[in-house]
């Protein structure tokens, strides 16, 4: 008996292929740009969420008429805006707000999209047909305009309502993707076997099919996060994101719509713009590395 056990253990060790997470880790370590991006992202998050605990939001957004439009100095690291507010403080709070919204919207669209796509793809046939027609309709809506109209007519909105409005019109992409994968997945033997054994559809969908799609979901959601941060800052830029008392990165950029600010007061909008660009680039880098890791054909080593 004992010898048998040892043999089994040894045998399984030899043929064991690297686990998913190991491959992901290896891929990221090999891709120096992605590794750097990941470290940068984690650092930004720690700095932003850490310091925003220490910073007093009210103090930062308080209008101070004696220090309007001051260039960067010792007192104000990145100068002040037209209300005499410290740009550096707003940058920290803004990054926190933008990141929070981005993550919240990504998670919510992910949850809706995954469930919707799984149900449509797994059941197929008429259910799929009806669900896809509904999805098609959402997809042809002019997203930006509808969201702007909603933001304009919802009288009082918070981070949550704003994310809900964005989520309502952004879940279609991931749902479509999951559906197409679920359609392929349900034809595979393990699903058929489970069905024959009498496992309930619900259990097959969420405990068997879903884990098999997890790598795809993680990749898509990472890439979506970058897109959502861009969308949120774009909406704030147009003036339909958050009010000025809760600054986001887009709010800071929106001050540049004043030609005077755009031309002479770079310290108000350039740091926020660079931060948005760098954030989106690094999230994309990580996303691309993850994508390569999950697709054996694209793997680098």
């Amino acid at each position, binding site marked *: 008996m004992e010898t048998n056990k040892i043999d089994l253990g040894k045998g399984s060790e030899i043929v064991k292929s690297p686990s998913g997470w190991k491959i992901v880790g290896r891929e990221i370590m090999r891709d120096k740009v992605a590794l750097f991006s990941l470290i940068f992202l984690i650092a930004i998050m720690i700095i932003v969420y850490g310091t925003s605990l220490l910073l007093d939001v009210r103090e930062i957004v308080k209008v101070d008429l004696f220090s309007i439009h001051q260039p960067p100095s010792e007192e104000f690291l990145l100068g002040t805006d037209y209300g005499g507010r410290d740009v550096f403080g707003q940058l920290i709070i803004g990054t926190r707000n933008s990141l929070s919204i981005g993550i919240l919207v990504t998670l919510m669209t992910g949850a809706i999209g995954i469930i919707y796509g799984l149900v449509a793809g797994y059941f197929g046939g008429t259910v799929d047909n009806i669900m896809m*027609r509904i999805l*098609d*309709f959402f*997809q*042809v*809506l*002019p*997203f*930006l*305009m*509808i969201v*702007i*109209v*909603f933001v*304009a*007519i919802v009288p009082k909105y918070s981070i949550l309502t704003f994310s809900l409005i964005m989520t309502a019109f952004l879940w279609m992409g991931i749902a479509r993707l999951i559906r197409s994968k679920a359609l392929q997945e349900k034809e595979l033997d393990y699903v058929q076997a489970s069905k024959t054994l009498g496992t309930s559809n619900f259990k097959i969908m969420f405990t068997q099919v879903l884990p098999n799609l997890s790598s795809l979901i993680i990749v898509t959601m990472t890439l979506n996060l*970058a897109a959502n941060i*861009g969308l949120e*800052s*774009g909406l704030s*830029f*147009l*003036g*339909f994101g958050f009010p000025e008392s809760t600054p986001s990165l887009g709010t800071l*950029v929106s001050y*540049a*719509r004043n*030609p005077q600010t*755009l*031309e002479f007061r770079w310290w108000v*909008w350039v740091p926020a*713009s660079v931060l*948005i*660009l760098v954030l*989106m*680039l690094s999230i*994309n880098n990580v996303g691309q590395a993850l994508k390569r890791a999950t697709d054996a054909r694209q793997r680098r080593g």
Partner: protein
Amino acid sequence: MWKFSIRRIMIMIPQVILLSIIVFMLAKMMPGDALTGLIDPNVDPNTIAEKREELGLNDPWYEQYTRWVAGVFTGDLGQSFHFKMPVSELVWQRIVNSFWLSLLTLVLTYLIAIPLGITSGRYNDSWADRLITGYTYIGFAAPLFIFALVMLWIFGFHLGWFPTGGSVKPGLTPGTFEYVMSKLYHMLLPALSMALITTVSTVQYLRSEIIDTKQKDFILTARAKGASESRVYNRHILRNSLLPIAAFFGYEITGLIGGSIFIENIFGYPGMGQLFLNSILLRDYSVVTSLVLLFGILTILGTLLSDIILSLVDPRIRIK
């Protein structure tokens, strides 16, 4: 071909109806109604109530909805509260500006995408390809509004090469050569800013498509027959790779709609996107609803166009 197109158009009809219902409900949710745009708010409330009854604003929603749809079909979109003129007239003025801007953007998009995509795909892994891939990588991540702001900052304010707002120099008579040139001059920077960002996905797609086609058997056959390199590329590969790009034309239009809101806002260009934002800020809701409806229909038409072109290009889609 015809069967597919007709079926595709049939799908479109419920979409348009649903869209109109949503837009109508949005209009109902907005504060104020068709009457607010017509009369002075200081008039006696009793008269307003009478007027409301007369205009049928107290009827059930479906009756109001059918009346509104009938109005839309006859070109009556209501009255603008701020500009004191019919919405259809107002929209028509702006739609022309937006149309030319979008057309120029589209032309520039393809003018940039095709040479870059071909160079990048044909000489892949050369330094030129690396340069182009680098550009698409950054362009893919860069938000349109930040890029446009930077363009305006550098070329509009810093170097002063381009005007920083408006659609034409004041004081020119419409129709003259100078007028047209001035219009073009004002459109160039906004259109270029938008094109440089929207073109990125087309370049990426064209590149991978060419690299893909390059390794196919029929290219090997063409080479074996002794076809010259330029013939292989121009006649065999391009024909196969450019067709899918043509199919994206419709989606490109829907993308332009979202982008035009940012671009027109940043460059102060008097088009529909700018009108939309201003109307929202001025609470001029009859204009807002008409514009949402119009943009929605344009989006639906854009998708329809792409689907039909795709079915022409790729027959596999038709058999479904």
